[in-house]
């Protein structure tokens, strides 16, 4: 079946689409719905107004205006929403897409070019969509004698592992994180540990020389930079005494840790670049030496998936930097509180004659309040900010900081050449580990000198 092949015929194409649609429907009916049932059986269902929300009830309430907002709210606070949309995959993919666009335009500006321009009329906004369409319509070529299961699985696993990394990132106050772990930081290290394995397996499975060299390089690089990465964050852990990422953010409400630990931040930033395989550390994809490194044999959408995974990873690392060194979502709250009348009295909507005929209440507008009492408390001066305010302000601060960090991750691509493997290992094992230990001792000194820690500022 082909779309752009020379013998393209609309009839065949439509037939193919209908065939596929038929089979997809069949499979969904036979396998998908039972699977959903099984999942629903084990899932915690929300309780709204004392009623257990079942699927049937949810469908009923969808058409009941008074119950819609509680329904939507309950969905917003469900795990699925977190995984799929907000702090999880959708949010990360959106930032990743933005990153790709910014990277192209910024690099173009730095190099006195225009960059993507025509696609999407406005400065090439839709270039990424165009590239995605192109990639998805390209043939996937699998090299002869390749280890097919591994070769197919590698890009998907790569995206999955990157997503698992994203799952650990808290985005806003109030537990807006997919998985709030006590040992979040260690979980990050555990997840990072999977990337070299996927890389080397995909490189090995391609049965080609250039990917193999690239994979081995990637392995050495990731593995060598994992230790400085782990050590550079130890200083913060010493000062905060916790491994939970949300608590680390909250510990920085007064000042970000980068003030006390610039060395650790520099080490972490450098190792981050190396783990992300970005210039100047993009040895695994050094195109002038080994074609495209471990990505050489990936074609079409497989390549696209690896790229998606790597940009998700980029977002996750930038967010981790923000969380640990730049204070995450902390920042002055600038989002104005919502009108109290909207909550308590409702807003009257007049008709053409000016008579108020309809009063609109927004009692549980999901993003703006978790608890309607907060408004009352705020009005009475008991509470400074509502949680809705904090959420929006926090997300904006977080995104701003993340974008700033991403800018600094992207900038070296235009400024530095690629370095060599032995230089890279030398930097990792001699300089960065040394600096990381310097950072640890600084943190230790700060604690024992009483500057920070229990007896100090905090």
């Amino acid at each position, binding site marked *: 079946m082909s779309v752009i092949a020379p013998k393209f015929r609309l009839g065949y194409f439509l037939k193919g689409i209908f065939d596929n649609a038929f089979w997809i429907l069949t499979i969904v009916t036979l396998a998908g719905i039972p699977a959903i049932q099984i999942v629903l059986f084990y899932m915690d269902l929300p309780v709204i107004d004392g009623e257990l929300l079942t699927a049937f009830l949810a469908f009923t309430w969808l058409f009941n205006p008074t119950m819609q907002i509680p329904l939507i709210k309950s969905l917003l606070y469900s795990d699925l929403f977190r995984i799929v949309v907000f702090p999880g995959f959708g949010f990360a993919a959106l930032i990743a897409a933005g990153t790709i666009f910014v990277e192209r335009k910024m690099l173009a500006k730095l190099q006195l070019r225009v960059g993507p321009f025509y696609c999407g009329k406005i400065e090439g906004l839709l270039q990424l969509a165009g590239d995605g369409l192109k990639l998805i319509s390209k043939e996937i070529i699998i090299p002869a004698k390749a280890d097919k299961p591994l070769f197919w699985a590698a890009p998907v696993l790569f995206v999955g592992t990157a997503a698992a990394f994203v799952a650990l990132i808290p985005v806003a106050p109030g537990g807006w994180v997919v998985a709030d772990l006590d040992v979040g930081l260690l979980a990050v290290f555990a997840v990072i540990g999977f990337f070299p394995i996927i890389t080397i397996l995909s490189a090995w499975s391609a049965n080609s020389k250039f990917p193999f060299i690239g994979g081995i390089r990637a392995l050495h690089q990731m593995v060598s930079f994992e230790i400085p990465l782990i050590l550079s964050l130890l200083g913060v852990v010493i000062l905060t005494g916790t491994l939970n990422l949300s608590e680390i953010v909250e510990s920085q409400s007064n000042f970000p840790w980068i003030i006390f630990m610039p060395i650790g931040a520099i080490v972490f930033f450098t190792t981050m670049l190396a783990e992300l395989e970005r210039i100047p550390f993009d040895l695994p994809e050094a195109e*002038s030496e080994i074609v495209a490194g471990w990505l050489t044999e990936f074609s079409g959408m497989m390549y696209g998936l690896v790229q998606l995974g790597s940009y998700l990873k980029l977002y996750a690392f930038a967010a981790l930097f923000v969380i640990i060194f730049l204070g995450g979502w902390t920042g002055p709250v600038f989002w104005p509180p919502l009108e109290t009348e909207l909550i308590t009295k409702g807003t009257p909507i007049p008709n053409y004659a000016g008579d108020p005929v309809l009063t609109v209440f927004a009692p549980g507008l999901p993003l703006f309040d978790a608890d309607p009492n907060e408004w009352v408390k705020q009005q009475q001066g008991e509470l400074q900010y509502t949680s809705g305010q904090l959420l929006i302000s926090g997300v904006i601060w977080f995104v701003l900081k993340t974008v700033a960090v991403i800018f600094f991750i992207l900038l070296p*691509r235009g400024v530095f050449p690629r*370095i060599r493997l032995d230089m890279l290992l030398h930097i990792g094992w001699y300089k960065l580990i040394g600096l990381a230990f310097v950072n640890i001792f600084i943190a230790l000194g700060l604690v024992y000198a009483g500057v920070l820690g229990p007896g100090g500022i905090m």
Partner: protein
Amino acid sequence: MTEVIPTKQMPPGLQVDKVDDRIMTLNVGPQHPGSGHMRIIVKIDGDYIVDADPDPGYVHRGEEKMAEARNYITNIPHLERPVIHDSCNILYPYVLGVEDLVGIEVPERAKYVRVIAAELNRCIYIQYWLAIYGIFLGHSTMFMWPAGDRELLIDLMEKITGARVTHAYFIPGGVRNDVPANFEDVCLRQVNYFEQRIKEYADIFYDNPILKARTEDTGVLSREDAIRLGTTGSVLRASGVDYDVRVKEPYDVYDELDVHTNVLKSGDSYARSKVPWLDMLESCNIIRQALEKMPKSGSIRTKLKPNPKGGLGEVYRRVESGRGAAGCYIISKEKPEPYRLKLSVGSFRNLIALPYLLKGEKLGNMPAVYWSLNYWPVEADR
């Protein structure tokens, strides 16, 4: 006296005969982002290159054979094809040789115009080379900037010759057309701006510590080896040999201009990449001098018979092209066509240094060493 170049000292633990079963043979090229139209058969042991065998010829088109079938004038558009980016300089020795063979004098103004065109073209070539050197080292900005700034000079060349790349401008007896009116001002302005631009490359490229760490002490070609291997151009000058055909054997009006030869001592990839850049700055100087000294008016072309015949004999002329000395050896037998025409070009002469330099280097150094040799595959293949 048998003098064999000693092979470079390999790092310990890399003796080829011992590690036979670990050797991996890589075909670098012809369809490789880091090869050009050439194949280097590289044998690697781990990260180290134990053997490298260049295999040029993918763009061989027999210019020398074809030149024997064409007359002296119709050879002109063809002989610039091997290096279209440096077309004036590759044509220069041929034109000088034909002038010697036919016996024709060149007007003074034409000589200056030739020098200006040749120096502009040298800068154009070096910018292109530098762009590729940048991207070979993974420095994408250094790919875009030279490629963009090159447009300034291409614009000038287009004003002079009417073509952006393949100029076919030099002709026995002078040049084909005069420069346009008001050219001196435009040229001076653009060349000055160009010089200012390329000085900015220092910050981002030549003084970049990562680049220095990457290219310094890699692929070191000592002075003696550079001479014995017969390298030329920037490769030779980077190894500390003060040799520039423009100075040593001035042609046209180079003896009236103040040409400074850039010589660096270290002979590593960094020096080899820096010498062309210094050459560009020097070229800007030469262009300014030439614009000053150029007669403001006068003939620019001595008329030639329609189908000139060369005398009986041979001639070997050299010029300094962007890649080193370019020689043209013409044997003439009183025919309108040359009996034998041989181009002795810098790329081909520098190629011999490649396997010598790559042995024992790390794989990551391969592009840095290869492209620092100022090698242009099409010119080497001819």
